[in-house]
């Protein structure tokens, strides 16, 4: 089995609207259906609440408002899943009822 991180992207404007909402019925259904494959996951607050910390190269840090990459699509949440291979991971990811879409990243397992 392999582990994958599914990053859920949504439109920033839609995300702001949904702020404070409890988990939607479609996500509840997805979680029930794919429960055995889901290792973890969470919804995130809007990107305006994120803080980036960048190393300044001199042992210090540069702390700035917002995520690393500003774009129309922002990270809204994630799932950590387990699947036999990428095909199964993609099948699961397609069922995530995400607004814009999702990214699937294989998780590196330390040896």
């Amino acid at each position: 089995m392999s582990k994958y991180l599914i990053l859920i992207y949504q439109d920033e404007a839609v995300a702001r609207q949904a702020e404070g909402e409890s988990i939607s019925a479609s996500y509840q259904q997805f979680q029930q259906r794919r429960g055995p494959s889901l290792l973890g996951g969470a919804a995130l607050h809007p990107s305006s609440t994120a803080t980036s910390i960048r190393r300044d190269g001199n042992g210090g840090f540069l702390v700035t408002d917002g995520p690393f990459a500003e774009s129309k699509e922002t990270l809204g949440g994630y799932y950590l899943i387990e699947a036999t291979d990428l095909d199964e991971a993609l099948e699961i990811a397609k069922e995530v009822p995400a607004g814009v879409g999702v990214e699937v990243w294989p998780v590196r397992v330390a040896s």
Partner: protein
Amino acid sequence: MAGAGGQLMPRTASAEVAAAVADAHRREWAFVLAATVRVAGDIDAAEEAVQDAYASALASWGGSGIPRNTGAWLTVTARRRALDARRRAATAEHALPKLLSPGEPGVEDLAIDEEGIPDDRLRLIFTCCHPALAVEAQVALTLRLLCGLSTAEVARAFLVPEATMAARITRAKKKIAAAHIPYRVPAASELHERVDGVLSVVYLVYTTGHTAPSGADLMRRDLAERGLELARMLHALLPGDADVAGLLALVLLTGARTGARLDGHRDIVLLEHQDRSKWDRRAIEEGVSLLRESLAAGLPGRFALMAAITAVHDQSGSWPDTDWHEILGLYDLLVERWPSPVVQLNRAIALGFASGFAEGLAELDALGAEPQLARYPYLAAARGDFLVRLGRPGDARVAFEEALILTDNGAEERFLRARLEGLPDSHGRQGQRESPS
């Protein structure tokens, strides 16, 4: 070499062995590699074992004679090497990302399972053409792993530096291993969509060879041949698939005209002026019969429709006999189901021949706004041709000059220059060279 002085004469001359190995490389590479991947556990290790097997064939076939089934010999040898290498690396194995972890392969995996091997090739195709890989990577992997081309050859085929191609292939292989792209034939529910992706890759290989996007020559025959071989391999592996039959039909029906596409100076001869006696009748017959098979299966796919259009040309006795209404009808179906700008461009050309050049030109002009066609030389070239036929040489000149700027292919450049020279000058006198149209 066969020597005097009592030296043992090798049972098979080295030239004969070299030819047999080269032949086996061309015909059996995918077969041997695909059958070795499962034993090796990853693609790189399998490639290495297969290369070793070919090297040892070169060394040992001279003494032992060329085996009757070269593919089986090479597969057994490659699998044995892969297994040895894997056992040697067993201690470090857990650290390596694997294509699949089917467990330690047993000795029974070394046996040649005549039923299993075609499946292995199919698995390899679906891995190379997995939609999670970039299309350029899919094409590169297909040529590298299924056709056995070296990285340098693949780079040459697509006119990119070898280092760029090597990096592209390495990145793709890393993704296959790290993301666990599976080595298997997709489930029935997904098969249709995935086959379509594979066919697009094979067609891209073929068209890149049939009309090279750049370079001095119109064609890269080697690449076109590889495309045909891949289409044949797919048809052998998926004999019941109508889309696969459609693609093989298209490739055969297009390739049937290869011998008439260039003149003695390697200049382009338009379909209109081709010597149809040079067309390959056997390829046309085979293509038409495959096309029938594909069409009989129901709603025709994209490649079957393109093959049907090609078949109308291939089967008409002369240019004036061409049934443009039939061709237009087929393009209408194609546009309806796959409305790409390139298909619309071809439909506009068919419309010109079926219903009048003014009507065709109006369609072509409308397509000028398509961003996808902005750098596509054939739109300007087709406009130029219709403008000539409509008696507007001045406007045709502008169109041909535009096409000339857009093409990177030497033969196409020569063709467009000839057309420009053939246009009447501003005083209405005919140019020195006769217009090819």
